[in-house]
Structure formats: C-alpha cells, structure tokens
C-alpha cells in the first residue's frame, strides 16, 4: 500500500471516529431537549439551550472564574498529594511486608468509611476551605496506594533475579525496574483519582460550606430553585472533568517511552 493512501485512510477513519462521537453526543442532547419539552417546566428540567444560556450568564461574572479556579486547586491539590504519597508509601508497602501490615488496616478503614462521615468529621477539625482538599486526599489515597502496591508485587521476578545477579544498585532497581513496572498501575490510579476527586471535592464543598467554590454555587442554585443554573454548574463540572482527563492522558502519552506498558522480554 502506498504511504499516501495509508495516510488518507487513517485520516478518514479518524474523521469517521470524531463524527461518530459528535453523532452520539447529539443523540443524547436531542433526547434531553425532547424530555425538557415534554416536561415543559424549566424548574424541573431545563432545556439544553437554557442550560447553555445559564453558563453564558455565569461567565459574565468574575466570581464564576474564581469559584472554578479554587475548586480546581482543591481537586488538583487533593489528587496530587494522594498520588505522590500513594506512590512513595505504595512502593514502601510493596517492598516491605511489615510496613504493608501497618498501613493496610488504615487504608482499609478509610476505604470502608462513607464519604459523608469523613467530610463531617474533618469539618469538625479543620477550616471549611481546606476540608475538600483533605477529604479528596483521604478518599483518593487508598486507590493509589492499593494500585501501587499491586504494581510492585506484579513486577517481573525474573528481571529482579537478573538485577540481583549483576549487583544492580538498589536505587536503579527502583528507578529502572520497579517504577516502570508500577507505571501502568499508577496511571490507572491517577485517572481514577481524578474522576473521584471531582465528585468528592464538590460534595465536600457543599457539606463544609467551603467558599468560594463550585459546590456552594450548586447549593445556592438549589436553595433558590434556579434549576437552570444547577444544570449549568453541573455542565461546567462535567466539561472541566473531561478536559482535565484528556490533558492528563495527553501528557502521559507524550511522556511514554517505547517499552512502557509492554510485557517484560523475559
């Protein structure tokens, strides 16, 4: 096959894929519009157009961007700390059994706690503005820790034997064998943490009355019965979450090396 033909084909299939996605999105928006028309009450179910109008109105106010910025900082802060600590402590837990035994009950307890209990408890101890960040960290940390421990344990024993025979330095065993083996697990944990982080942060913002925040704007829209604004803020959360997910995936793909994610050649 000629290279030009191959490129044309791959471009065509990419266009088809994008058009397909737009088609699916259009279908759901159409369904939403029809449902809104059928309900015929913006107070119960505002139409997509009304929701979009709400976003435009909100964007006219500087507070809107402050709320989004602060919520984003809380999400990023919580997710970043949970992934960084999850990586370090997960490596330690995977490599050292006593440390794992010490950490495991703590992680299992947090995992089984209802998010609402954690939020209310943390809110008793620290300032409202910090509650979402701390809660996001606490909820996301078990996910990253567990994944990293699993990654360490699934590291190819044959490669570790080779490193032992050749007296490879401990720091290199960690950087060149354990970390690349853990990478797919850590990436999956990061993506889960981002998805979870948004939900937990916004919930904690509502329950802890953290200001400024997207969560409190949602809450105000609810108590003032501004259902269209409630939908607009929800739409903004979905868009922000999608954009961040795509940016993260793009950055991970850019930093991938050729052998990443491959089965070891052993």
């Amino acid at each position, binding site marked *: 096959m000629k290279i030009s033909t191959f490129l044309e084909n791959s471009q065509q299939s990419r266009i088809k894929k994008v058009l397909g996605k737009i088609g699916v999105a259009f279908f759901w928006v159409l369904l939403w519009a029809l449902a809104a028309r059928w309900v015929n009450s913006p107070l119960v179910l505002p139409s997509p157009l009304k929701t979009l109008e709400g976003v435009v109105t909100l964007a006219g106010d500087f507070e809107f961007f402050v709320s989004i910025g602060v919520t984003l900082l809380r999400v990023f802060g919580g997710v970043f700390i949970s992934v960084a600590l999850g990586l370090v402590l997960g490596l330690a837990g995977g490599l050292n059994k006593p440390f794992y035994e010490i950490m495991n009950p703590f992680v299992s307890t947090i995992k089984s706690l209802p998010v609402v209990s954690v939020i209310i408890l943390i809110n008793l101890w620290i300032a409202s503005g910090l509650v979402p960040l701390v809660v996001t960290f606490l909820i996301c940390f078990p996910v990253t820790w567990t994944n990293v421990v699993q990654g360490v344990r699934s590291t190819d024993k*044959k490669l570790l034997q*080779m490193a032992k025979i050749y*007296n490879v330095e401990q720091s290199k065993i960690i950087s060149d064998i354990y970390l690349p083996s853990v990478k797919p697990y850590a990436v999956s944990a990061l993506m889960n943490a981002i998805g979870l982080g948004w939900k937990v942060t916004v919930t904690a913002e509502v329950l802890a009355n953290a200001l400024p925040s997207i969560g409190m704007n949602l809450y105000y829209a609810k108590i003032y019965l501004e259902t269209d604004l409630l939908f607009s803020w929800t739409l903004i959360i979905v868009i922000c979450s999608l954009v961040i997910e795509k940016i993260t995936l793009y950055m991970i793909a850019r930093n991938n090396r*050729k052998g990443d994610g*491959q089965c070891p*050649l*052993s």
Partner: protein
Amino acid sequence: MSVIISKLYKKYGDEIIFEDFNLVFEKNKISGILGPSGAGKTTLLNLCSGLEKPDSGTIEGINPQSISYIFQEPRLLPWRTVRENLRLLFKEKSIRKAGAHESDIDGMLKLVGLGSVGDLYPQELSGGMRQRVAIARAFLYPSELLLMDEPFSSLDYSLKNRLIEDFLKIWEQDKRTVIFVSHNEDEIRQLAQVIFTFSDKPVQILKKETL
C-alpha cells in the same frame, strides 16, 4: 579457583533433587551439564548463583559479587534501550564520570556483532539479537564465573551455531569459569571442554567426559 560442590542436599516438597551430591567445576574451563528436562540442571545453576539456597551441603569457590548469568530468556528491560540495559551494570557514580564505560559498552556490542543497535529497544530486535545482548551483558560484567542456562534453546539451528561460534571467540579473549546447562547434546559438544551427564532426580553423575 574451581567451584567445589560438596554433600549438596536440596528438595522441593517431598521431591529430592540433590542428595549427597559432589562435583568440581574446573577453573577457566567450560563445563557442560547434559541431562533430561527437569533433572535439576537449572536448580544447580540457581544454587551456584545464590538465587536459591541449599538445604545442606556447601558450594565453595564462588564470589557472589562476581557471577554472570545468561538465562534461557534474555531478561532485558523492555522500557530501556540496549545501551541503557548494559549501563545498568555500572555504578551511578562511575557513569557520571565523563561517560566512563561507554567505550566498554560499544566495544562489547561490536564484539557480539551488534555495533549499531545501542539506541534501539529490545522489542525492536530479533530473538537472536536479544540473546546476543544478554551475552554482551554477561561478558561486560567483571565476573569469574559465568552460568548459562540453555541460552540457545529458543533459536533456530543456523543462528544457534553462529552464536556459539561468537561465544567461543569472546570466551577465548576473556576466559572465565563457565557452567553451561543444556538438554541438547550437540550444543554441549560444540561448547564444553568437560561434560557431565546427569541422571533424573535425585541427580547422580552418570558420566564425565573430557574433550
């Protein structure tokens, strides 16, 4: 120094692999071990390398810091280039000193006929080339003892012969004590100077030949 195995005892569960087993591998010679699959040949290499511990008995004449091992599979890091795989053998401090060892790596890659693949990843190489990298790694590491566990078993006939010839050429330049394990008699006869034929478990030496 020769490798001296005395009164070795090793069992897995109820299965005895070695019982009162004695053997001497001569210094700077290639000793071949021939035997049926699952007879305990790999176990013996693992015991010599320290990857496994004997239940009783002794293995003398081995400096655990000075062993190279060519496994059945090349055991290369897929996320590192060939050069980075070989660089793993050197201490970080010595690498930082103006690219020390880079010429050693280049020289060894040339010696195994892979002069131009240093920047490629293992998955970009053929099976034979990957095994050559494993041979390069074994000789690049300053060891007194080289263990080889059927390193040619997955290769086709002509590639195997070429690789054995290359191996012998490198060994002539850098003689080490080699313990080479295989169930293929032709391979053993091409390489080894002393051949031990093992029985099935518990292992006994059926025959010793000096070529």
